[in-house]
């Protein structure tokens, strides 16, 4: 069994400079299989030319982040939605 992934916690720092809300507690729905889970549970591959977060159920790509010199690219088309609670404690 291949265990070279981390989880959504590992991508949170990278995403914190793009998204205003904490992504680890956000719910994400996989556009491929429909599984809805906390983003913290995504399988995250950090050792690539970019960060790749995959659905823990079907491994479909949920999200990718690429840092290109002075630009950042964020691809989220693998998620039907990301949903944040607005009354979260700090």
């Amino acid at each position, binding site marked *: 069994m*291949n265990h*070279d992934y981390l989880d959504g916690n590992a991508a949170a720092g990278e995403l914190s400079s793009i998204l205003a809300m904490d992504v680890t507690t956000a719910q994400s729905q996989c556009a491929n299989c429909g599984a809805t889970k906390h983003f913290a549970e995504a*399988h995250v591959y950090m050792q*690539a*030319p970019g960060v790749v977060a995959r659905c823990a159920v079907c491994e479909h*790509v949920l999200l990718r982040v690429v840092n290109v010199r002075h630009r950042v*690219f964020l691809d989220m088309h693998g998620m039907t939605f990301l949903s944040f609670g607005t009354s979260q404690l700090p």
Partner: protein
Amino acid sequence: MAIISRGFSGRRAAADVKLPPGQYLTTDFPVLSAGPTPSVPLDSWQLTIDDGSRVLRKWDWKSFRELSSESFTVDLHCVTRWSKFGTSWEGVSLDTLLAEVKTDASYAFVHSYGDYTTNLPLKDLLNKQAWIAFRFDGENLAPEHGGPARLLVPHLYLWKSAKWVRRITLTREDKPGFWEGLGYHNYGDPWREQRYWGE
């Protein structure tokens, strides 16, 4: 503006060899992956060349290994800045695989087992510039490095050398692959430091 960390230099080794711009020399072989390592049993492995609608050539592992292969030594350059010199491989040249293929396509779109893809001009696969490699450093290519077989195109950044290659589609139009669609350079020549869009 980042503060400089006293005494930190990172993993770079001084080199008296000629490196492409912005690269450092490494002696190990880093594994970078955008997803889980696919498990491809040899008895179901296939390599296909198609034009998007018709299959032009197809090999299973047995017929693939019956093709004439060659040993070759090349330097590798990864866009994450490491370069590894003098790596030895065995593989089948794309000149051999494409020998009887008649096409007016100018581009190749490469698919791996899993969902990885990459694209390059067809001419960059020809003239002794590319192989489907199945042995590295005297051993069968390990899964984490792309085994059973990977594409190897050493004159471009290593993300073009798709691991776990399974299909090459020849097309008239260029279509960006997994990283090319998200900021990485469409061509990727390390000697012109073509890492990202706009370079």
